[in-house]
């Protein structure tokens, strides 16, 4: 089926089988490999992208259902000047990254959180990422990175 959608502010046309997942379309057709395939069950969040600003598990989301939507992947988080977003920079500065395989998914979920709630407390940040598994960090430095962004924005 022919699908038109916007990915990282660029219009794209795809011709996909009805069962194809958004993750497969992004990774294999559009070569956006930032979103990761880790479980294909919608359990780990490594494939998270934003669909009209809302985080979705792209590994179980059919491309066919994303017609006319706005998709943002981790590759679309940088500003137009190429600079890292404040959240990306905070991940770098606060050691929120170890192996990095869950990082794109965490960044997408947390970008959506900050867009909806610019001043989340620690419990709200933790709750936001219960659908994003990270095996390396034990989550604390991830949460601290978000807190740093909030502090900076309030300055």
């Amino acid at each position: 089926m022919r699908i038109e959608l916007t990915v990282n502010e660029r219009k794209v046309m795809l011709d996909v089988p009805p069962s194809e997942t958004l993750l497969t379309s992004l990774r294999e057709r559009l070569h956006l490999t930032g979103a990761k395939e880790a479980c294909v069950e919608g359990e780990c969040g490594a494939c998270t992208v934003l669909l009209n600003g809302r985080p979705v598990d792209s590994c179980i989301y059919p491309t066919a259902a994303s017609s006319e939507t706005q998709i943002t992947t981790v590759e679309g988080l940088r500003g137009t000047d190429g600079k890292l977003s404040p959240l990306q920079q905070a991940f770098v500065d606060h050691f929120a990254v170890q192996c990095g395989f869950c990082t794109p998914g965490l960044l997408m979920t947390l970008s959506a959180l900050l867009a909806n709630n610019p001043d989340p407390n620690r419990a709200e940040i933790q709750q936001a990422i219960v659908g994003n598994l990270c095996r390396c960090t034990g989550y604390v430095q991830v949460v601290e990175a978000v807190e740093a962004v909030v502090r900076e924005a309030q300055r």
Partner: protein
Amino acid sequence: MTTEIGQSSVRSDAVTKTTGSAMFGTDIALPGMLHGRLLRSPVPAGRIVKLDLSQVVAAPGVHGVSTAADVPDRRSGLVLLDAPLFASDFVRYEGEPIAAVVAETRELANQALEFAVLEIEEIPSVTDIEAALAPDAPLVHPDWESFDTSPGMTWPRSGNVVAESFADPEGVEEAFEKAAYVVEDRFETGRQYQAYMEPRMAIAEFDGQRFTIHVAHQFPYNVRDRVAGALDLSPSQIRVIGHHIGGGFGAKLDTGLEPYAALLARQVGRPVRLANDRPEDLLTCQCRENAVIRIRTAVSEDGALLARDVEVLMDSGAHATDIPFLTSIPMHVFGSLYRIGPVRIKTRAIYTNTAPTGAFRGVNGTHLYFALERHMDHIANELGLDRLKYRRSSLQSDGAQLPTGQVLDDAGILSEAFDAIERKAPWAELGIGPNRGVGVAACMWLTNPMPGSVTLKLNSDGTLGVLTAATENGSGAIATGVRQIAAEEFGLSAEQVIVTMPDTDAAAFDAGSQGSRTTHIVGRAVHEAAVQVRARIFETAASLLEAAVEDLELADGAVVVVGTPTTRIPLADIAAAAQAAGGPISGSGSYTTPMPSVNPTCASGLLFPAFPTPTYHVHVAEVEVDPVTGGIRVLRYLVAQEVGRAINPQAIRGQIQGGVAQGLGYALWENLWIDEGRYMQRTFEAYGLPLATDIPEIEIVLLEHPDPAGPYGAKGVAEPPIIPVAAAIGNAVADAIGISINAVPITPERVLEALVDLR
């Protein structure tokens, strides 16, 4: 001059990992790449009655199939050569490869496998380690006697016992006879899945002469050697290229899909990719082995530990993997923390019809220290003594001797670690209140000594290149540690150091990211290489500056004359001048830790004889148990960890926070429950990994006792934080509910069962 050592310099890979541009193994795609899938055994034990792949071959998009008939009739392995590439007559665990198919896409490969005709007659299986020892138990490998071992390696083994280590020093029985108390416990621990986020994968190419294998692997040189062993090739026929690794935690040290990718690539003449889906990955991963541990200790009236008798049974699964090495570890654990008389230790690794187990961060230390430190609480309670005071009065000090004879020069650090925790959270103030409890556990652990190497080169722009086959598994050992050490050696900033990704054609041997070794070993190799490289730099600079070599120093990317900092020449100019004169500046260095001396006759089967570069750790946990649900909440968790010298404190903090999180998973939730040889969980969700809401912020004290042999004093850091966690939590839970649970994970069901028994 800025110093990199002790700075929390950002990771070299942090930016590309946050922008999505970092290429992991699973992101690699080669032109013309095909996709392989494995036909795996659906049962734990059986005889293959029929295997017909003719319809698979004929299926759409299929390029080829492979079975045992297509490969050399040989078994291979890390130390015991007991694993065939494909099962041919019998299958020995659920998930064992039987055949491989290669097709245009993964989907077509999966669809083709649906046409495989496979008939297996189920046979009696052995799925319990204690049952496997019965005289009439079926043998997992009836032909076990025919298996070869790696050259020079021998150890006792027999039937379902794949490896045994036994120490029986004099005086054990006599001590038990005169003991005032004999304290005895039995512990049972679970099988933990490494649950790295990136499933295992491999891509292989064959150019008619040599193989290139793309991996996301902790130990590329082992991939090379193991693929050579499996396919009867010479190791140098294989080039292994490493990409970013989406977590490993030990599971990406042994070979996995690589030999199959190589086999299929040679067969079809195109690049072939294999990648596990998650259920397959979970099913076939070399998980942390489940174990049963029995300890009996003879104790005097005043609490002295007179002697000990330990029996450890480890579940090796259907193959040996690296488990024979691990049967030595109890010899380094059960006499390590507290003064004790002779210790008898019998450790056996047992074959069962389950997936082969293997290395997971902290290997069997997690369950050995769980047993040792739960048992220590039991002894203190038996004596009516405070658990902390009793430990402190029994602690080993400098010069203590392990049952192997290894001398721990600096065991007194243990006492300092207890002090550090006490200052941060006084023992008497913890675990107060209904259903609350506090637990303490310590450990001593090694820094893996295996060899590594680097080549350094001074680039024409004054930056430094570091060529190594060492891997960055996410720990930061390369992305921070090695890079900062290299920067420090040349007065550079970490950003001016570029470390290559591993390539076995280019870099000399490295033993992979295991046992906290990378910063210590590779950092020291950098130091060795830097001596030569600096000599060339100073020699070149001396002639350019018309100064004496001994008057020169490196600072801020230049060579300066000591005392006259304006007389300087940038490293870029030195690189250019040297290149034109004597040739480019480069130098190599290697290192492996000398093994501490031990008494070689202290035990049979001692394949891993010593614990070099030991570090010392104390953990304290405060928990609250919900008596209605049986759930356990961790209120506070404290770690005092000795690191030698902290090269990058924030990176170390990440290792401790993450390691403790994995330890909490092991202690409380994670286990592959086995029912008649089959795992009952197949997904992340069913398995139950810790979530962001489950893990408290770990309170950390770093202790620094620089190791003269380590780079700037650094010792291993990343592995130990997982080790004492189950012990500290188990002790806290027992304190909270007044009853011992001597099994991990300490699930709500086990807590409720214990509470019911109490009533």
